[in-house]
């Protein structure tokens, strides 16, 4: 018989004084010996169980499905990498990639700076009705997609649309086929993105601006800095953490853009506004090509992960040395 492990004595000691002294069964003694080592893992196990069940398992199943041909019922047929090969030769997929790229570039290059400028304006000293402006800019995020579809459909309609009517009345020109022309349909989608998300991002920048120490502005004033110089040398550096966070989240979410083109044009005319997320939805839930959709999903996942990592490294998210 080996000597009891050193952990046993403190465990015994922690028992209540009135606990009856029982002869330890082999099972109990194993548990008594191990419980201090096992207990922490048991406590954190719910997280890992859920993480595995709801994150790892779907990813692994998605990877497996991407190498199969499956319509949703019955047994998936293993096709190896054929779905990936088909995707690379699929004109629709590349159209979707190109459109998504356009949406990402627009969001990063126009929506984010617009949000920053609006936040700067809302942060101006002595601005009256600040809360009203904030509410107005935030409103598009909480409006029902159904309402957006109806209202924007009427705004941009070629025959009866408000924009064309106003354009015709004011400028004598209003014949833009906003939703029927491939080029203008893309413009319409990015207008919707701008309208919908600028106000939301403004809130983040506004929170960041309110944390910029006033002393820095006072010091800049003393140094004779003008508004542009103050913005460039004080505001932007102080907003760096917020900007990095917003840039990464906007990048990751705009690569997965779905709602805006789906609501406004359903990817049309033709496929001219189709995004990659819509392409996946179409393959999976309209054509029942679940293996093909999974392969596109895997590629999207890889793209999002790589871009997210790249952006985090470039922008120094989570690092204190910047």
């Amino acid at each position: 018989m080996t000597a009891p492990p050193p952990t046993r004595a403190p465990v015994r000691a922690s028992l209540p004084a009135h606990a009856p002294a029982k002869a330890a069964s082999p099972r109990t003694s194993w548990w008594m010996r191990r419980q201090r080592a096992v207990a922490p893992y048991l406590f954190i196990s719910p997280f890992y169980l859920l993480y595995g069940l709801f994150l790892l398992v779907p990813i692994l199943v998605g990877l497996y499905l991407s190498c199969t041909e499956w319509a949703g019922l019955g047994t998936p047929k293993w096709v190896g990498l054929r779905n990936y090969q088909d995707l690379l030769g699929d004109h629709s997929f590349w159209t979707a990639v190109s459109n998504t790229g356009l949406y990402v570039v627009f969001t990063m290059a126009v929506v984010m700076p617009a949000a920053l400028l609006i936040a700067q304006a809302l942060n101006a000293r002595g601005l009256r009705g600040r809360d009203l402006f904030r509410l107005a800019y935030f409103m598009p995020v909480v409006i029902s997609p159904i309402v957006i579809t109806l209202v924007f459909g009427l705004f941009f309609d070629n025959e009866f649309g408000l924009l064309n009517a106003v354009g015709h009345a004011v400028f004598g020109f209003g014949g833009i086929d906003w939703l029927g022309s491939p080029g203008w349909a893309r413009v319409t989608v990015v207008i919707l993105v701008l309208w919908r998300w600028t106000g939301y991002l403004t809130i983040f920048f506004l929170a960041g601006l309110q944390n910029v120490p006033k002393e820095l502005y006072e010091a800049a004033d003393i140094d004779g800095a003008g508004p542009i110089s103050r913005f460039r040398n004080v505001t932007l550096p102080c907003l760096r953490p917020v900007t990095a966070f917003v840039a990464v989240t906007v990048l990751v979410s705009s690569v997965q853009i779905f709602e805006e083109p789906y609501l406004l044009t359903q990817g049309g005319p033709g496929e001219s506004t189709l995004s990659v997320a819509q392409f996946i939805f179409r393959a999976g839930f309209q054509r029942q090509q679940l293996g093909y959709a999974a392969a596109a999903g895997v590629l999207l996942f890889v793209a999002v992960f790589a871009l997210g990592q790249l952006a985090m490294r470039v922008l120094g998210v989570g690092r204190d040395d910047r």
Partner: protein
Amino acid sequence: MRDLSRRRLLRAASGAGLGLLAAPALAACGTSAAAPVRSGRAQISLWTHDPDYIKTFRSAIKDVGLMRGSRFDFGLDITSSAPADIMTRMIAQAVADGNTPDLAGLNFDQFPRVMQSSIAENLFVDLTDTVRPLGDDLLKLSPYSVDGVPYGLESGNAITVLYYRQDLFDTYNVPETLETWEEFLEHGARLSADHKVSVGMISTGDNGSIVNGFLQFLLQRGGGFFNTAGELILDSPEALEVLEFMTRGVRSGALMALPDPYGSACAAALKSGRLAATAMPNWYNAAGLQANVPEQRGRWRIRTLPRFAGGGHIASTMGGTAFAVLKDKPNSEAGLELLRRVYLSREGQVLRYRFGGYLPTLAPLYDDPELVASKDEYLGGQQAFEIYSAAAADLPLFYQAASMQILSDVLGGQILDALKGRTSPTAALNAGLKAYRQQVTR
């Protein structure tokens, strides 16, 4: 009571938590096999997207005459959802061996999703024996058949007729009895040039709307997308003729380009009186006209479609929803019995017409005195069945295939390009066919 230490409390709580987690997990691993319901109470789970079907089935199970002699006492558990979601969730539930409905309403453009990989065969009850006694009297089975086996019963015989504003036709001297589309377009071009009024609409919104509008005219002309075997037959002179007709109509202004036949732009066109006529199925009366322009009650009339000079039919069809019975479920037999009573009996069809305006799918009912005598107040008291009866007798057949959605995706943009003058009808159809073949052979 003994003292409850913190340790015991934590152990008890964690045990209870694990039990709670394990219960659904174990339940999910089990099979849901239960004895089939042969008689008595049958609580039917019904999924549909349309409130009118809910009203119809609820009324049907309370209708003593309709349920006379049934060995089932029906109850309904209704789930209402969008057409695409019904199909997606039903397939997902079937994969998970979960709670599929007993009766499912399948929109016609969702049905192609189950036409591949034997999904329909594995999910739905084969209705061959159910419909056999009715023979050719039962209409519109073809869109919901796979390899000749029917899996769904159409709710209404969606017959496309010409809706027109009688008052505007009078005002603008457009004869109500024009024989051909070609004559009709001539008057339309004149009205468009003189009064900015169109005599038809063409959908230019999403691919589905565009392609359905094209298909409606194509079926009337005698063409189609697929034959009975599911082979593509789009490469035809009829398809080219129809696309040229549509393109000509849009360019002259006779046909108005609108995103879809229901949305805000269409409502504006109807309200402003700029749309004086349109070819749409019977359900457009309630879903399009009465919904958007109730104030125009009494001004609209219907007639059979003008013919194409080259031939074809005096009617067409677009849309529809079939109900299918899920197989190998405790309520499969009861579901089939309910569907048979509501969808394949005279009483059921009359009830459906009264509640939702669904036209009968039983051919003899187009001569039914009660239905023929009925008047449509929105259509100025017109006896609509006189028109529907003539149209039903010359209704084209419509077949679907598993690749219908692919065709819709690749053809929509090409048709739109032709309508907008960005390409020729010939080039548009050729490009669509080429893209379809590439994607289908993948």
